[in-house]
């Protein structure tokens, strides 16, 4: 699964995700990616794209849960993402997120996630583990 989240210089947020799903999935199976709030979500505060075991991400509405913790509990994006990921079974969820303020977060409970991020302030990172 691939995905991207971004906040532009005007503070607009967006998220996008795309996937082939799971190897050997049943034909007709739909994963988390296209279900609004499960694998992809954006509002005026943050944008989130998830990857991992789709069924677990759907059960937890993971992307929307991150946004809801920011919106309703006032958690920093990093804490909200960590909480959602920690609540999922080990090895099942990874996500990337950005906030309107330009905070970047890449959280996972898997051993690895192919990921990258950059900010206007000059932070730049590409990594796997």
């Amino acid at each position: 699964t691939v995905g991207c989240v971004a906040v532009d210089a005007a503070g607009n947020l967006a998220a996008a995700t795309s996937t082939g799903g799971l190897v050997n999935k049943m034909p007709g199976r739909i994963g988390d990616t296209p279900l609004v709030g499960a694998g992809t979500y954006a509002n005026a505060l943050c944008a989130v794209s998830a990857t991992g075991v789709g069924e677990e991400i759907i059960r937890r509405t993971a992307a929307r849960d991150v946004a809801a913790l920011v919106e309703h509990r006032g958690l920093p994006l990093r804490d909200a993402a960590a909480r959602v990921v920690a609540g999922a079974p080990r090895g099942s969820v990874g996500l990337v997120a950005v906030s309107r303020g330009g905070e970047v977060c890449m959280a996972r409970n898997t051993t690895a996630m192919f990921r990258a991020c950059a900010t206007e302030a000059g932070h730049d990172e590409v990594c796997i583990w």
Partner: protein
Amino acid sequence: MGWALALHGGAGDVPRTLPPELREPRLATLRRSLDLGAAALREGRPALDVVELVVRELEDCPHFNAGRGSVLAADGTVEMDAAVMEGATLRCGAVSGLSTVANPVSLARLVMERTPHVYLAFAGAEAFARDQGVETKDPSHFITEHNIERLRQAKEANRVQVDYTQPMNGQATQQAQTPADDNSQTG
């Protein structure tokens, strides 16, 4: 605070011994996609354009599980899903079950922008793609030798696999397939 972006190419159990021939192309695509997105943001392009641009680049890379390089369903076909969402307006679009659309993320955006709906799937989504004139490919375009082999291994082990699942032996497979409790299929 300025612009920012983050992207992913899937998560899972990736061994640290991943051979360079599998690691380097993926890292190169992540770098290229990141630079593409950062340049677009630097030029003042809106976040919605940037996430579509970056995901299209990732979809075009056969080493990631989306677009060309999508993993195979049990019947050996690809069924691709994609979604896009704009934060300020809560507008969103999604597609499922695509087998011919070169860049599903762009079709998801067209669902968002040109229909009164949020989500189109399978035959309806394919018909919409043709109606919109988006680029399509023969279904074989999306299937790689690597993913044919992965499907063969998964069928042999009788399980489904997330993006970077490592091969398991028969005993471990049986354990993994056994529900831990009555709630294991909740949802």
